[in-house]
């Protein structure tokens, strides 16, 4: 264990400001330091300025004002000196997809000036380290996300850097590869290398030695994650044993004085209060017990941003109650299978979703979530199996089935050049609304979401939170029975995410049925039931609490959703190996 003062300061940021065009600066007077021998997390939602900050450290970009000093050199004066001594892995790993693993390594070895006589040993070490030895002849484009990421890391490590910059290495990678990568990087810090790891996942932030928390270009916090969570110490509670509907209770709690934040966590509710003398308020009236819970980084972030939104959803209040005519599930998947050539993207996926249920498809990118999802909303024809929405067969009554569902695509695929009003009009028309009813619905959602001030602006210029609201508004305009949400909150800040789930929770209470895909483990806890999708197959199905309980061991008495996911994947792989 080294003493903190032994750690060399590798990067010094002083009043760094960077603007792109007019408007809000991408980085606004950011100051801080990055030390050697540590993992420093640059943490924040999309658009917070993480990538810009990393690029400024590489010397590929210069600040408008302020200075960035890396390894004792000013980026403005000697970028070349910096670039010989750092390793940098940009967001898409910077690999040449049409070169093989070995060719990529050779290229970067030449570019970084790795001496010929050291090569064999270095390659051997890195290939062992990344477990890529078996794949040296494979084209980089043919590797899985996790393998690409490891190769990217190997290329950045060829000439042992003093500072390693990783831009969102955890994106698009399954949780197992993510943990492996983290372990590799931890090993590097023992040799004194400083590692910068940018991320939008707040659970990754907790594992860092130090954190720079950015939001909309401003530095909100700099220091150890424990110092951050300390601000909500003693104010976080888990309310369990609820009698009554958990989402209704959450909505009521959120509107109470002194409640800062609350989310569904399996069958319980996680609450952050304004002061530590609150537990009696929490348990009063719901037959529930509030017990203190260890604070998380996300709790502190929400607290720092002034707390989450209230529990009221005017969108849901305007929604009429949908009642079941029979007990038939609203969404049914029976043996859905999709093959592309000899690749099976989705293999025999089966589940039923009851009215008023939130069902999650959880899995890493490329696991087959979106394929399943697209088959269920009639965008993709299954190779075999059948899907039904509100009783309509998706193959025969595609149009009727589609009229019963609202679809919110990943990354809010709205028409960027249309204004909010034009988008609303367009989607209302697409969903078959017209005349008086169309005018009423458009006026209603505009009023609920407060679109008035931005009505004329092109939607591509809107802030991320507003884009998300607009996407939701477009999807629910025709009051569908089922809502399909594809990665609805990836990359957005926690406040926006809470506002979004407040609406979803309230809509569900009115009888809307929700199918959501996510690779975000925390979000899976908001669902009633989830299906874990891995390599095209559903490897487990159950409520979040059931899935977590199924992997409890002596070493892991209180597993997180991610722990459960990893354990279940390992169990399923062991199962496939044993099978003849």
């Amino acid at each position, binding site marked *: 264990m080294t003493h903190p003062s032994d750690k060399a300061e590798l990067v010094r940021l002083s009043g760094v400001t960077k603007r792109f065009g007019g408007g809000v600066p991408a980085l606004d007077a950011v100051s801080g330091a990055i030390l050697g021998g540590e993992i420093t997390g640059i943490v924040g939602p999309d658009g917070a300025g993480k990538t810009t900050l990393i*690029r400024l450290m590489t010397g590929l970009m210069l600040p408008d004002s302020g200075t960035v000093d890396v390894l004792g050199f000013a980026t403005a004066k000697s970028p070349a000196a910096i670039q010989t001594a750092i390793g940098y892995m940009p967001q898409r790993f*910077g690999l040449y997809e049409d070169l093989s693993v070995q060719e990529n390594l050779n290229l970067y070895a*030449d570019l970084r000036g790795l001496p010929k006589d050291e090569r064999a040993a270095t390659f051997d070490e890195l290939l062992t380290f990344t477990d890529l030895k078996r794949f040296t002849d494979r084209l980089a484009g043919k590797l899985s996300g996790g393998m690409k990421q490891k190769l990217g890391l190997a290329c950045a490590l060829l000439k042992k850097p003093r500072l390693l910059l990783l831009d969102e290495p955890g994106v698009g990678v399954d949780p197992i590869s993510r943990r492996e990568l983290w372990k590799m990087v931890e090993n590097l810090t023992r040799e004194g290398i400083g590692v910068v790891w940018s991320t939008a996942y707040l659970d990754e932030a907790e594992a860092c030695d130090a954190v720079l928390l950015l939001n909309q270009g401003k530095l909100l916090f700099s220091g150890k994650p424990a110092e951050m969570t300390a601000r909500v110490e003693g104010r976080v509670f888990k309310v369990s044993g609820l009698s009554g509907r958990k989402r209704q209770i959450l909505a009521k709690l959120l509107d109470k004085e002194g409640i800062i934040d609350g989310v569904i966590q399996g069958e319980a509710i996680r609450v952050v209060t304004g002061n530590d003398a609150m537990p009696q308020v929490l348990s009063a009236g719901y037959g529930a017990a509030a017990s203190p819970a260890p604070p998380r980084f996300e709790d502190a972030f929400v607290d720092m941003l002034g707390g989450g939104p209230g529990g009221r959803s005017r969108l849901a209040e305007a929604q009429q109650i949908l009642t079941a005519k029979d007990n038939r599930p609203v969404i049914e998947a029976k043996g859905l299978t999709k093959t592309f050539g000899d690749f099976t993207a989705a293999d025999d996926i089966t589940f039923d979703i009851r009215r008023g249920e939130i069902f999650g498809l959880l899995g890493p990118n490329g696991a087959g979530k979106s394929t399943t999802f697209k088959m269920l909303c009639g965008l993709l024809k299954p190779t075999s199996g059948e899907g039904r929405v509100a009783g309509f067969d998706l193959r025969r009554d595609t149009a009727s089935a589609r009229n019963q569902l609202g679809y919110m695509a990943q990354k809010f695929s709205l028409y960027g050049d249309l204004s909010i009003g034009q988008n609303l009009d367009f989607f209302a028309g697409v969903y078959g609304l017209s005349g008086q009813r169309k005018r009423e619905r458009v006026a209603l959602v505009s009023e609920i979401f407060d679109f008035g001030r931005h009505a004329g602006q092109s939607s591509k210029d809107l802030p991320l939170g507003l884009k998300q609201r607009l996407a939701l508004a477009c999807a629910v305009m025709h009051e569908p029975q089922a809502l399909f949400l594809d990665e609805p909150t990836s990359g957005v800040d926690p406040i926006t995410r809470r506002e979004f789930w407040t609406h979803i929770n309230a809509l569900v209470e009115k009888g809307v049925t929700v199918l959501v895909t996510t690779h975000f483990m925390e979000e899976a806890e908001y669902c009633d039931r989830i299906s874990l999708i891995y390599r095209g197959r559903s490897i487990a199905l159950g409520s979040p609490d059931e899935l977590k309980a199924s992997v409890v061991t002596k070493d892991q008495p209180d597993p997180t959703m991610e722990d459960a996911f990893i354990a279940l994947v390992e169990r399923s792989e062991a199962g496939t190996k044993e099978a003849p």
Partner: protein
Amino acid sequence: MSASPTSARIRRFAALVRKESYQAVRDPSTTLIAFVLPLILLFLFGYGVSLDVTRTRVGLVMEETTPLTQALAASFQASRYFSVTTNQDRRVFEEDLVNGRIRGILIIPASFTTDYAAGRQPQIQVIVDGSEPNTANFVQNYAQGTVANWERQRQTLSAEEPSGITVEQRFWFNPELASRYFLVPGSIAIVMTLVGTLLTSLVVAREWERGTMEAMMATPVTATELLIGKIFPYFVLGLAAMTLCVLFAVFLFGVPFRGSILALYALSATFLIPALGQGLLISAATKNQFLASQLALISAFLPAFLLSGFLFEINSMPTVIQWITYVVPARYLIPSLQTVFLAGDIWPMFLHSMAVMLLIGAVFFVLAARSTRKRIG
């Protein structure tokens, strides 16, 4: 540093060239643009497009029938440039002309014989379709030529005193006036524009799109190494595509090759400098494959096609357009290449062309290097 700076530099450069060559070989679109597209173009200009006019269909109106006018009509019918239909009434042909069934109407007026006998200059009227100016011009010129020819023969036959001067045309270098002979060398310039500008701008823009450019820049590579390493393989590829075209031109289309191979390669290599420079500049400025390809087509391919003297003579363009042609590198290459093929080595002309192309290339490179300094955004 274990290695000396120079050897490290050479190694980096070699690594970039090797990488680029692997990619070029593995990417089917490179083969398509560098070898398939050029051959298609070459075949198009070699066989499909011809600017020669043979057997143009015209209508001949004879408003009077005398031995004199019949003799003239016979002379039109005998011409290898026309396929003639005869009638007494011009209205018959008017509709044909409108519909494009014929390309022109030649009218021998009722006063022809009287005028001729009176020693006045006999006149015939030519009506052409102005919407196809090229063809219209040919019809007009050939009609005049045929009349002149007929008149000359007639004078010789009647043994009257020979009229003053006769013009005898002789075409040097391309005696058959086969357009293929000058279109094929010209299309080689187009092909090199495709490889040099379009392909280069695409591959560099692709690196920006895929984020590999950013990863490259964060290594010790200098901007110059990056640029030169990027274009060197395409320089070689451009010359290879050119060689392929020349082989086809000479051995398949029978275009004569009267100059030296040295001149051919010197000219082509020089031309590739502005072409590649322009490609680099476009990709550095757009960083987007779609925009880059559009810009490359509009700013390089079309000018090389239209403003280089390849299809349209520069001398007959409006003055302002003529000024623009001075910055089109293909304008300097095409006449020189045509000379290499059809006439032989004329070094003073080549050196002048090469100097101008180098100058344009230098401007592109300075601009490209400025916008590709090791900075993003």
